């Protein structure tokens, strides 16, 4: 069983293993970044580190008018990115052995696959895909 943080991007339910998360920060001040555009919302000062805040719904092409004021800060392995999501929900225990990987082969909406949570399908976020997309945008 793995501990998974459940959150939403627009109407979709997503999950992320807590091993990839450094901290969920409550309402950090957002700082203006010159030349930031699109999915890059700005920067946050996270314990003295200046981190990029990424609008995850926007990066993945979702239409999300509202964003949760809590930010998900990833571990250094994932560049300590700070992610803004539609709504941070809760941490649950899920059996990832039951993960159904993407049969289509293409990583749709940056999900590594789906897993069932009491009848709700949870998309497991593919962080490598997120980084890949960001690298494409910011060479």
């Amino acid at each position: 069983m793995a501990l998974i943080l459940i959150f939403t991007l627009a109407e979709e339910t997503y999950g992320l293993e807590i091993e990839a998360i450094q901290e969920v920060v409550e309402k950090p001040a957002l700082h203006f970044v010159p030349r930031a555009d699109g999915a890059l919302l700005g920067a946050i000062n996270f314990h003295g580190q200046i981190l990029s805040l990424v609008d995850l719904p926007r990066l993945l092409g979702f239409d999300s008018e509202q964003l949760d004021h809590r930010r998900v800060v990833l571990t250094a392995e994932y560049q300590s990115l700070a992610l803004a999501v539609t709504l941070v929900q809760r941490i649950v225990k899920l059996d990832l052995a039951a993960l159904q990987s993407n049969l289509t082969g293409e990583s749709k909406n940056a999900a590594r696959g789906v897993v069932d949570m009491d009848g709700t399908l949870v998309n497991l976020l593919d962080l490598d895909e997120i980084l890949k997309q960001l690298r494409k945008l910011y060479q």
Partner: protein
Amino acid sequence: MDMSQYRELFFSETREHLNNLNQLVVELEQQPGNRETIDTLFREAHSLKGMAATMGFNRTAQLSHHLEDLLDGFRKTGVVPAATVDYLLAGIDLLEGLLDDMTAKSAERSIDEFLQRSPSTEVVLVAEADVSSPPQVNGNDDQSLPLVAVEVEPSDLVEPLANIEEPDAFQVLVSLAEGTVMASARGILVLRELEKFGELMSSKPDLDALRNGAPCQQIQAWLRTSLTKDHIEEALRKITDVAQVRFIDDRRREEVSREDAAKTIRVRTELLDQVVNLVGELITQRYLLNSAAAGRNWDELRQALGQTSRLVDDLHHHALQARLLPLESITGRLPRIVRDLSRKSGKKVTLRLTGSDVGIDRVVLEALTDPLVHLVRNAVDHGIAEEGTVTVSARREKDLVLVEVADDGNGMDSERLRSQAVEKGLLTAQQAENLSDRDALMLVCQPGFSTAAEITETSGRGVGMDVVKSAVVNLGGRLDILSAPGEGSRFQLRLPLSIAIIKILLVRCAGHPLAIPITRIDRTLGLPTAEIERSGSERVFRLGEEVLSLVSLPQLLGLPEPAVGEITFVILTELQGRKIGLEVDCFIGQREAFVKNLGFPLNHLPGLCGATVEGDGRVVFIVDPQPLLENRPLLSSN
């Protein structure tokens, strides 16, 4: 006595001594009769010997002693025979190898072969060493020694015992079977057996411990031998109760870097005292501030605050001083490198060093070491044809240091570089033609531009001009190349004194505060807006005789244009040798900023070179206008 705390210091001092030795020997080669140089060399070798002996690094001590003796002989005759210079240099190289061994905590390599090559046998009197360590057990290390050393006391077993050509050093792990009776006695047998194979450098537990009945389940031994591992294993397995024999190769030596040099730094006591004094004064000041605040005495408070800010400035200045090292600490190797290169290429090259005492942040210096060697190598290989001078100079320029590598050789032909770039498909003919001469010279910094010959020459170090340039840029500096056919070449590296703290100008840009490094600013202007003219699609203004372009910083950053006021605030900066004006909303002020590095993808945004956190916690980004200007779209819509 536990010497481990002195290890770092010993290594850094040894490195300094070796640097000096290298430099002095090269000087001596040019002036073989210079008494003073011989004396200094002698003293360097003498200090090195003393330190190494105290630390228990016996081979280093022995070799330094050997060189010291040799030099003492030259002191008496007053001349250094030309033939011995190579021998001295080889000795210094060997000392460097020994230093690598010591830093890697592996056993010191053998010096026997070197000692046997000694050019003058009468000065090799190692046996009479006044080395303040226990007497050396040299075995037949040295031909001039009587063979008493064969009757070694067992306690000296950790010392070198045998003399083998090009032996291989490795660690042997011998495990005894569980429940071995009299394990320590078996251990002694194992050690005795190991001694037969070659040189048993050390072991854990050692013979003494085993004699005192130390528990012994496994023996770890450092062995230097030319025998094969199979042979050793087979022999060891014949001993009763030996359960397992394993070997660990000593390959770490190759990976020894100069890392530990970076971890320690020597600071003058005087400087340290000043810092401590300043901190003391600040503590007093804090009480004054407290009492002034408690008594709501505003005059006193203001005075105390002024005093505090002066103290903080002082402290900052002194703390930065501690980070500075003279350029000398990395140019020390250059005379030797140039000497070896000119000998190899048959060219007659003189090296001139000026400004070696200019202080540079040690982080900057470290990153500069390899690029500097590469530039000097290039100057000898490609710049100078037959005979010439390579000059490495340094001087302060505002809060930058200019380091220049210049040669009086062939110079570079921008026309030829253009056609080469086209041949290699890096540029189209049109692009090449539009390139200014200055930019054409910078083509050599393009990855993949170097010719094949250059790649083989420098492949050992893995440094090319593109690496030189990116090292300089990563440090927040700039590389310029000045050259013309027949006029030699000058590679100019402008580097920040310190990379952690820089001076910035805080400006407002489309309503947002932004910081611009002072090093990018020539001057600031308050320009009456009415004086701005149009020239085609560009805005221009006059400054003295010149007509300069005016570019809007908000526009460069994709921000809305601010409202036009009576005065336009302009920053003068330089772009490819030309002055250019940058318009901002207003200036906020100048200050020193502690630069924070940016995380991905912020660090990939053009023009962003860091951020600083204001007193109120606000994050202000530091913008380098240079790349923004270089990549600006043509301002046709302006």
